[in-house]
């Protein structure tokens, strides 16, 4: 993609998500991911309307007129965005491909993080880590992160979530909030997920497409596995096959959710056929309630 197009795309996402980030879940995000506590910042003169509870009586007595203590919430969170760019994301039957949606999700997270003055880092991975941007603050940095996410060309088609988590553990010594944005079509990552969640706060952003859950009746179709390249002729007119597929996928998704839950990982269920705002809000509220 040309630089200009990328910029245009970022701007579009920015405009679209600005309202979202600043208004709809401005507070939600902050309360969902709180820092370690309140930190004293300064003492200033009382203005009418300030909370009487905050008045610092010692200073008031010494100075002769009222002063209040001002606290600042200690945030300084580190947000790590782990974005899966494997080929299984090159699929989507609604408005967007799953990979495009992942990129947009990453952008939204980055914008939300920068608004709350958090550090944002990026790990782009397929079956290996393809790109790493260390966490930093600042608007310019966020734009760079988003640009990288959008313009990245995957070098491999496969997925290895474990490799990405392992990399995260090695590069990120401090506790971070890790958004793992993936469709989780991978194997043998459960153990590392559990280990990583001990050190960091892992949030699974599960991207899926309705066709992965249920097949439409379109007759015979030749399908190609996006990651492995295998092809398969499938007769979707066969009701038996469709229901069997539905059951199998249902089982798989349930198992995955169960695994997340048992590992203590929060999951954001993002689908290509539904607006992600709802899923995000639901997720933030859930976090808020728990904290």
């Amino acid at each position, binding site marked *: 993609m040309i630089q200009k197009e990328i910029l245009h795309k970022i701007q579009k996402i920015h405009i679209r998500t600005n309202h979202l980030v600043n208004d709809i879940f401005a507070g939600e995000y902050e309360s969902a991911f709180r820092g370690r506590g309140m930190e004293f910042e300064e003492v200033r003169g009382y203005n009418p309307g300030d909370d009487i509870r905050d008045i610092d009586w010692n200073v008031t007595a010494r100075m002769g007129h009222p002063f209040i203590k001002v606290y600042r919430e200690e945030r300084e969170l580190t947000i790590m965005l782990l974005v899966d760019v494997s080929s*299984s994301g090159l699929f989507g039957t609604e408005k967007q491909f799953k990979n495009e949606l992942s990129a947009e999700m990453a952008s939204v997270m980055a914008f939300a993080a920068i608004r709350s003055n958090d550090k944002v880092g990026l790990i782009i991975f397929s079956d290996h880590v393809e790109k790493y941007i260390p966490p930093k603050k600042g608007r310019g940095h966020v734009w760079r992160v988003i640009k990288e996410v959008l313009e990245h060309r995957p070098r491999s088609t496969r997925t290895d979530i474990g490799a990405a988590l392992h990399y995260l553990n090695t590069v990120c010594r401090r506790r971070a909030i890790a958004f793992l944005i993936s469709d989780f079509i991978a194997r043998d990552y459960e153990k590392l997920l559990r280990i990583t969640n001990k050190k960091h706060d892992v949030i699974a952003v599960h991207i899926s497409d309705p066709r992965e859950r249920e097949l439409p009746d379109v007759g015979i179709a*030749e*399908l190609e*596995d*996006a990651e492995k390249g295998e092809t398969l002729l499938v*007769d979707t007119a066969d009701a038996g096959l469709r229901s069997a597929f539905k059951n*199998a*996928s249902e089982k*798989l998704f349930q198992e995955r959710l169960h695994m997340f839950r048992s590992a203590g990982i929060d999951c954001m269920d993002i689908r290509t056929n539904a607006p992600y705002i709802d899923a995000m809000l639901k997720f933030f509220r859930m976090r808020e309630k728990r904290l």
Partner: protein
Amino acid sequence: MIRFAEPWLLIALVIVPLMMLYEWKRAGSSRIRFSSLELFKGLKHSRSLFWRKVLPVMRCLVMCLFIMALARPQSGTRTTEIITEGVDIMLCLDTSGSMNALDFTLNNKRVNRLQVVKKVVNEFIHGRQNDRMGMVVFAEEAFTQCPLTLDYGVLLSFLDSLEIGMAGDSTAIGSAIATCVKRLKDLKSKSKTIILLTDGRNNTGTISPATAADIAKTCNIKVYTIGVGTEGEAPFLVDSLFGKRYVYQKVDLDEETLQEIAQKTGGTYFRATNTEALKTIYQQIDKMEKTEAKVKEYMEYEELFAYFLIPGLCLLLAEIVLANTKLRKIP
């Protein structure tokens, strides 16, 4: 018999493997990318998938049928007319009692003269093409066993059914020649030939051999004469009071008369003392009477392309309909 009028068009059949290759390549070129096929593993697939895979094969089959229809398959079973201008040959065979003499051998076995004659004449008939041949059998009387014909099958079967004594016991060479002449005289053919085979002396009949030869000459008929029998004495198998035994009798062959007949009519006289000699003689006659035959053979061919084209069209139709309805594949 089925043949192709334009068999070179069958070269186009090489298209079929190429087509199969193309279909096979094409089958892999368009498909829908799906995130993961893991879920399909272990699912039971329906039978229509099999038919879907058969479709390209059907198309190739259609191509085969069309190319074969293009090459114009014909059945030429009906032969209507064969006009030949060969020679007319009357085989004149002696079946008198003396043909029973066992002075010939066939495959190292002693057999009577008639059997040897049958064998050799059989080979002679097989060697000819497009010549009309007939057969006259004589002994005491002479009669036509088979009129002139091109149907050698019939002739051979008549030859096979010859028996000694079927026309009597004595020898009427004159009558035999006369019968042959009667059969040949009215025909307009380039060459008329009688091959007279005998082993005895004219001792009966109303026409003398010399007269008969004259008639033959008048009718422009060539007579080849063959005298059969060893020199001296020949063994005969005779049933007597003491069982079967060989009796030697003197061979009574009237060579002078035969020579005269041949000479008069422009033929040749041969003497066969054994099987090999007899064979050689017939081979010689065969060579002498070789003619260039113009064969006009009218074959009526029935065009059979419909039997290829119609099933081909039906298959094609079925393939197209199926490929676009029940077995339609996306993309």
